């Protein structure tokens, strides 16, 4: 189990971005983390994978436990070796390397299983296999997103942190990603899924958290969240009667969420 207890994180010594976040990702589950832009989701994932440091950020309070053991002081490489792997926001592929080289870097900590994992990833994304000798920087946005997900799978992680994996993917592929998440979860990988596509995320999660301005404001089983009125309105775009609203009818910007007032 991956557990976050009362975590506080600060950027540049002054910007408090996580304010006492607690969250549990039980082994074998898929947990969704929703939240508006700037809520601190990415920051939380950085805290879990040891990358805050790079951004002049640090954990000022609280702890991260992996199977009961505190891991928040560890270096990113150590965390990867312990089985935590992250798909970073914004793809972050190594643009100057080829597709296959990108994947091989993903297998840095697991050289022995590299060949097998490579086949598995190519199986999941045939398009990558087709382009494997191509310079990855020239791939289209969506192709790069596939590469980013594929790369994270190359270390054979036990815990996979996905930061908006469906961003920029075509609808058909979003479906595939969802199936993929379900599939890797079945194969034994625990998943923390940060998504803006709430419907997709909640449909495959066991549990869901909603985060706003650095705090967890909702913490319920996914099914309950799907039924919640506020979630329906603000995350799923369903009107009171359950009908899908038209974007043309939206009149106001920046509405206040009820749970914040």
């Amino acid at each position, binding site marked *: 189990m991956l557990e976050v207890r009362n975590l506080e994180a600060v950027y540049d010594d002054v910007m408090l971005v996580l304010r006492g976040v607690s969250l549990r990702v039980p082994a074998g589950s898929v947990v969704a983390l*929703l*939240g*508006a*832009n*700037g809520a601190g989701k990415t920051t939380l994932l950085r805290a879990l994978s040891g990358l805050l440091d790079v951004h002049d950020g640090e954990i000022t309070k609280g702890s991260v436990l992996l199977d009961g053991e505190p891991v928040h002081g560890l270096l990113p490489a150590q965390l990867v070796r312990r089985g935590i792997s992250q798909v970073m*926001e*914004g*793809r972050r592929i190594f643009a100057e390397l080829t597709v296959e080289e990108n994947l091989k870097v993903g297998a840095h900590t697991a050289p022995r299983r590299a060949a097998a994992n490579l086949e598995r990833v190519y199986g999941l994304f045939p*398009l990558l296999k087709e382009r494997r000798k*191509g310079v990855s920087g*020239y*791939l*289209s*946005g*969506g*192709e790069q*997103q*596939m590469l980013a997900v594929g790369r994270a799978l190359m270390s054979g992680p036990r815990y996979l942190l996905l930061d*908006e994996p469906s*961003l*920029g*993917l*075509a*609808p*058909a*592929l*979003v*479906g*595939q990603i969802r199936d993929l998440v379900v599939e890797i979860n079945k194969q034994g990988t625990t998943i923390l899924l940060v998504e*803006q596509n*709430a419907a997709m995320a909640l449909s495959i999660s066991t549990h869901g958290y909603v985060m706003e301005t650095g705090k967890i404001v909702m913490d319920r089983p996914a099914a309950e969240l799907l039924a919640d009125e506020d979630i329906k309105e*603000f*995350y*799923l*775009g369903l009107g009171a009667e359950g009908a*899908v609203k*038209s*974007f*043309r009818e*939206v*009149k*106001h*910007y*920046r*509405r206040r969420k009820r749970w914040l007032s």
Partner: protein
Amino acid sequence: MTGGEEEPGAAPPVLTFEDVGLSFAGVTAIDGVSFEVAPAELFAVIGPNGAGKTSVFNVLSGVYRPQRGRVTFLGEDILGLPPHRIAEMGLARTFQNVELFHNLTVLDNLMLGRHHHFGYGPLSALLWLGRARRQELAARARVEDIIDFLDLAAWRRHPVRLLPYGVQKRVELGRALAMEPRLLLLDEPVAGMNLEETEDMARFVLDARDELGVPIVLVDHDMGLVMDLADRVLVLDFGRPVALGTPAEVQSDPEVIEAYLGGAP
């Protein structure tokens, strides 16, 4: 319908794209695509990943040079023009992966959108003489309007690299609007946004079109958004046009469903 009086096709098109073909060593990005955009039209381009949508934008803005075809903007052939010339003609765009000037503030990013509207030179810049000063003030007033419009006031003086992704997307729209465009290209403006932010963005896009009367070409994978907003939709697959028509027509096209929409929404 918000499109107003002009029926698509009535007035001369703002943009024509004729049988364009573009390929990179071994990869065909665009293969015989043709379309036109009418004044004040909201035209959408959709298609699977790697279909060539962004490449179409890159051809339009002069970043890519296609091997064949013809592209005219406001009646002028723009193939071969350098990007900055095309921008000066009034073509503005946003990018799929936010391409802001990340060390600059929101304000400076927007002011940069007005770059080619200034007419003063280096000397007057160094001395900050009347000309430079007057023009900067005028530009600032226009930019503040955009800041108000896009509700960016709270971020005005922040370097954009520190802004949340959704806000960055809005700033990018603002920068394009600051150019006073005569055609606006939006590449996945709502990717990575939650519903609420998507709604906001939809509102901005519609208002921009209605208030400024700019025609817009929109690329996005959010079908809800595209189908709600677009007047016409072009569907690409492997660089080839698959369908072109109203949202309703396109949505029911079996080829489109097969190639793009997939089973589930």
